[in-house]
């Protein structure tokens, strides 16, 4: 059987992955330093929201290995995998489980962040829609979900190390180049998704970011006036 380089991760997936890595690292750094950097934490939150929305859409409309249906970890697939019978391209069923955990936790962190506050100068863009005690609760979940995310990132890295050292399988290179050497027996030409789907996904992601961070939703939905800080316009 011949080996052939086959594209398994398309460019949008790779860009998503590495941009999210950078976003998560910088979000953590900026909020730890605080002060003027807290503003950047919020900006990175907007980027993270856009990335997550895009990835979810790409999970339905993207190329084959990006689609959730391709790697959804059903019990039968998992059993097959643990019996060593799984043969596929892209995420294994166990890897699929990890994808859903990582994406789900990042999603929780991002969404709770929209409502969170640091009780100093940082308030999520949707903070005006809820009351402070609910926002404080969201802030707690934001932190807990982030710690859980760190644990799953650690597992993700351990799995990559395991593949590297034990199974002699480099998983990092395909995430950079997109290509992997594969036996061509079971893989023929890959169907490509329509380019229009990519632009629609990007447009929808941008729309969601604009609705939240552009104060559009708060202006539409806020039941109380959203003029944030009462200032001393009065003479006394």
């Amino acid at each position, binding site marked *: 059987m011949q080996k052939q380089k086959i594209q398994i991760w398309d460019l949008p997936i790779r860009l998503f992955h590495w941009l999210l890595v950078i976003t998560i690292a910088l979000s953590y750094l900026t909020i730890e330093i*605080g*002060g*003027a*950097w807290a503003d950047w934490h919020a900006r990175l939150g907007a980027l993270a929201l856009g990335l997550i929305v895009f990835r979810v859409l790409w999970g339905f409309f993207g190329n084959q290995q990006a689609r959730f249906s391709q790697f959804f970890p059903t019990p039968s697939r998992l059993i097959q995998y643990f019996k060593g019978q799984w043969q596929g391209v892209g995420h294994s069923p166990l890897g699929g489980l990890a994808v859903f955990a990582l994406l789900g936790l990042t999603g929780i962190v991002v969404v709770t962040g929209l409502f969170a506050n*640091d009780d100093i*100068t940082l308030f999520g863009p949707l903070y005006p829609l809820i009351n402070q005690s609910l926002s*404080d609760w969201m802030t*707690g979940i934001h932190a807990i979900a982030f710690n859980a995310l760190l644990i799953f990132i650690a597992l993700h890295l351990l799995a990559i190390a395991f593949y590297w050292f034990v199974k002699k399988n480099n998983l990092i290179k395909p995430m950079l180049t997109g290509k992997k050497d594969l036996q061509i027996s079971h893989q023929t030409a890959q169907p490509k998704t329509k380019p229009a789907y990519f632009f629609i996904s990007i447009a929808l992601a941008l729309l969601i970011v604009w609705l939240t961070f552009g104060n559009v939703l708060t202006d539409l939905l806020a039941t109380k006036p959203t003029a944030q*800080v009462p*200032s001393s316009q009065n003479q006394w």
Partner: protein
Amino acid sequence: MKKLGLFLTSVVLLNAGLSHAGPIEDQIKYRQSAYSFIGWNTNKIKVQLDKPETFSKEEVIAAANAIAAAANSGLGALYGPGTDQGEGWRKTRLKPDFFQKPDEAKKLATTFNLEANEFAKVAETGDPVQIKVKFGKLTQSCKACHDSFREKDPK
């Protein structure tokens, strides 16, 4: 009986020596009010810095002086023993650690005071660039204490 008497005497002496402001609930209430007032003024400044085109020097100076005044009012008197438990306007989020690491607590508190007074001076210049830098330092001093001595989740 003797032991109890000694204990009570020492409690009375300890409290007398530290001159804290009244019952625990009062201390927590004053405390929460002070920081809430500081928070309001902090965000008044943030609004000014976020909108350079309508930057009001007077608004920043007034808020900066209010923060400095609150910081200089002797907030330490509101941290009497036992005030890590109890309810003011709401349950306090002060960690018991505050009393176990008095040196660190003092350092963070005096840093905040220092930054508040420094900021009030810089506010007078009316220069948004300088003000922004010092404002970052000031809010970092808030955060430093929150990180060390405040419960993450409201109790």
